[in-house]
């Protein structure tokens, strides 16, 4: 069965929990319906946390645009559960080096966490919007 959910939130940090909770709920429904390899709680947490990080990045880089928004589309297909996070911010490089924790950095973990938790990530720029697509596979290949 295919599902699609779309939410649009103001680019305001107060909506972070809404974004992540919708993601967590979508992951829970998906995992229970499709059946996944591995622990359902870990799957849901990984998806919830990744969307939380992406939404936070979108808000942080919003340059205080009063009318800025962040749209998150969720859908399922044979690849797994996908979240597409788009915003109107300036273009960014989605590839970031891992933070050097020995330097006690207080930031720079967000994209790194997403890369660690999701199975596929892609970035594109379309109609002056950043589009970050993140997929969590139901049955990731064994490493």
């Amino acid at each position, binding site marked *: 069965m295919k599902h699609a959910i779309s939410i649009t939130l103001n680019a305001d*940090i*107060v*909506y*972070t*929990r809404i974004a*992540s909770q919708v993601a967590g709920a979508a992951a829970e429904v998906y995992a229970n319906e499709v059946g996944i390899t591995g622990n359902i*709680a*870990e799957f849901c*947490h*990984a998806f*919830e*946390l990744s969307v*939380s*990080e992406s939404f*936070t990045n979108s*808000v*942080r880089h919003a340059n205080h645009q009063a009318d800025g928004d962040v749209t998150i589309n969720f859908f399922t297909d044979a690849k797994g559960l996908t979240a597409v996070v788009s915003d109107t911010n300036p273009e960014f490089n989605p590839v970031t080096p891992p*933070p050097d*924790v*020995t330097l*006690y*950095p*207080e*930031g720079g*973990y*967000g994209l*790194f*966490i997403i890369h*660690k*938790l999701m199975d596929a990530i892609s970035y594109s720029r379309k109609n002056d919007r950043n589009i970050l697509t993140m997929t969590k596979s139901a049955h990731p290949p064994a490493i």
Partner: protein
Amino acid sequence: MKISSKKLGDYTILSLSGILNASSAPQLKSYLEETDFSGSLIIDLELVDFLDSSGLGILVGIARRKKAANEILKLANLNDRVKKVFEITQAYTLFDIYDEVNAAAE
């Protein structure tokens, strides 16, 4: 999120509960700036339901300041969801982590 603190022997216990994310992190930051946490500190994370990188950044900042001041900082009661964030970022290497507050305070 809810924040409280108390004394236990030589330690101050800072107890956090709820969601520690980008939205609530400024609340914790303000609390830390307004309260004297000099000396040995244990942060009890038992009731933290969700931690993201913004929350982690605050905790790493505390660790950096404690290290610079040559003071003791310990974390206690990390649930699986919180522990995961420390593991994937390797931030656990910056902290002394204990299963329980009483064990941390011994």
